[in-house]
């Protein structure tokens, strides 16, 4: 962090000012002039919270994607299909058993199994041929999308939120002051906050596992140079399978989260594929902190954009990607 400030004082200053303005907007009681200019604070706060929690969801999808890319140089364009598959599995399990948590577990295991099959049957045969692997994932995503359309139809599914998570929670953030002088606090759906907290926990755990454990060390070494790693006697194929399974499983978990937040339908796979692409392009390929930063930026941009400039919201996301590519083509937090 301090190295970054030393090397890029201007960018550091700009980001600090941006973060400070954001924090002020969130915590301060807005003066009337500001409310007239950009609307009610409640709307703004809701957009910010939606953006942050959506960022958590994007992080879950994109971190698996970036992990797989970082280690295996495999742009898995079927990642969106894994997301949707996990969502459908979670829906089926949670409606059949009534247990939301069980839905997560089964979705993780099943999508991880699909990931293992993909890695063992398909990708191992064409190692080192990036373009061919990517084309295969495109073909697979078409086949998967059609199979899921066949099995589940074109309907919208929403996973039932468990009872203990239903309802809003009052946050200690003042949205407005009533004429009687009484402050109005922000009310926000509890389930989104819980899921966001869970994604933060998963992210931190993943990061710790990467920098503190032996497996994490092997994975990081594989990201840097997989040939030398294999030459040192590590069973690299096993590592590949494990990482692919974990990344795919994360996509499945994200599918259950997405099915609870929003809904599941054909086409969501493409939406989340796009989201993970943009997130990892912005954050930096193969970097977990990069995926977190990218997911936060893209989630916020999408939600704030759809509130303040509804018909051009996607352009904001896109412009961020263009800006990052123009200034730092390797992504914000990539090492190279």
């Amino acid at each position, binding site marked *: 962090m301090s190295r970054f400030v030393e090397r890029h004082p201007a960018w550091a200053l700009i980001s600090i000012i941006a973060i400070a303005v954001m924090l002020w907007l969130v915590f301060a009681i807005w003066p009337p002039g500001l409310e007239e200019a950009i609307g009610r604070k409640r709307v703004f706060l809701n957009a910010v919270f939606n953006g942050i929690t959506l960022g958590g969801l994007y992080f879950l999808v994109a971190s698996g994607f970036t992990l797989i890319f970082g280690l295996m*140089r495999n*742009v898995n*364009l079927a990642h969106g299909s894994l997301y949707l598959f996990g969502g459908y599995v979670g829906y089926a399990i949670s409606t059949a058993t009534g247990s939301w948590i069980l839905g997560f577990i089964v979705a993780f295991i099943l999508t991880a199994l699909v990931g293992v099959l993909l890695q063992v049957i398909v990708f191992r045969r064409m190692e*080192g*041929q*990036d*373009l*061919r692997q*990517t*084309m*295969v994932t*495109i*073909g*697979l995503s*078409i*086949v998967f*999308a*059609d*199979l899921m359309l*066949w099995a589940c139809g074109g309907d919208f599914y929403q996973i039932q939120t468990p009872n203990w998570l239903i309802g809003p929670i009052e946050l200690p953030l003042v949205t407005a002051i009533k004429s009687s002088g009484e402050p109005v606090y922000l009310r926000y759906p509890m389930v989104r906050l819980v899921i966001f907290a869970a994604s933060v926990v998963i992210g931190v755990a993943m990061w710790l596992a990467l920098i503190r454990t032996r497996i994490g060390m092997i994975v990081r070494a594989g990201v840097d140079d997989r040939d030398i790693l294999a030459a040192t006697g590590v069973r690299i194929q096993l590592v590949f399978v494990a990482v692919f399974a974990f990344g795919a499983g994360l996509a499945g978990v994200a599918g259950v989260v997405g099915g609870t937040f929003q809904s599941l339908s054909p086409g969501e796979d*493409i939406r989340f*594929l*796009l989201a993970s*692409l*943009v997130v*990892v*392009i912005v954050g930096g*390929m193969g970097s977990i902190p990069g995926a977190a930063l990218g997911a936060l930026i893209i989630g916020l941009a999408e939600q704030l954009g759809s509130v303040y400039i*509804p*018909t*051009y*919201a*996607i*352009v904001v*996301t*896109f412009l961020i*990607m*263009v800006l990052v*590519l*123009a200034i730092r*083509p*390797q992504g914000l937090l990539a090492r190279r």
Partner: protein
Amino acid sequence: MSLAHDSRITVRPAALAQRPARIWPEINHPAAWIVAVILLIMPLIANGFFLIEIFASTLILGTMALSLMFLAGYGGMVSLMQLTIAGFSAYMVAVFGVSGNANISLGWPWWLAVPMALALATAFGTLGGALAVRTEGIYTIMITLAIGAAFYYFTNQNWAIFNGHTGINTVATPHFWGVNWRADIPFYYIVLAVAALCYFAVEYLSRAPFGLALQGVRDNPRRMAALGFNVNAHRVAAYAFASFIAALAGVLQVWNYRQISPGSVSVGACIDVLIIAVVGGITRPIGPFIGALIFVLLRTFALDFLVRIGLDGNRFRFLIGLGFLAIVFWSSDGVIGLWQRWRQSRRPAANRPGGGHGHG
């Protein structure tokens, strides 16, 4: 750096194998003349449905895929946004020209609207290409896919220019010299002329100094840079050329369907163009047209066929996906590659270079 090399390996051997064919351009091949004559007298053979729905659609889709083939085959850059460029050009024709949505369309005559659309779409594609060449190899697919998907969502949510998810309908088609150029036979000849023009332009450019330099950039960018070539400028120029071809195809497409909506620029459609090019073969300009013919035939007749053999008729995309997977697994240069291998296995002692050309 190794990343960039890996991703091109699939293209290189096929390009080497085709080099002898360069000495024997299609002009000297009797089959090429037969195909050309058949295409010219097609209106005598085929009726309106086959002429437009099969052959004109094939040529339009083939032209779009041709622009991808040029980028992927000669430049080593697999761009998934070629359909997006075509769709942008189609939208621009509808926005600047005359259409049923009078509040959006500016009502320019076609001879102003079309050059405007071509120029804007080429600029759009060149800018997208300039973004994509900032990174190497496999990232190109990701960035161009992101551009394509972003454009699709943008057309869906923007009502001021693109009229949201209903799109722009009843786009006017040109009438001049007393001919309705959207009538079946004149339209077929327009499409054929444009497709032939693009085909020969790509064929010519692949042998011109620019095309050779581009292939050098594909095979070894570092060495080309060391030789004094501006690698990125060549790549961006290739994007500009390919964008122009895609834009031409887009104009034809909007005249063909007389409407344009986000559905026609969806991500699935972008991927279809890649499938067409890969299935046909991305080492030769004829490949995309063969791929397009296969795709259009499947799209038109798969439903009847599947129902007839007792399967669910809606599984067309499943079939396409499986076919694509099979091609990617077993033949890196598509149907042309399969055809060539078959020819070679039949005549092991053949010294006629290049083998046969797969003609559609």
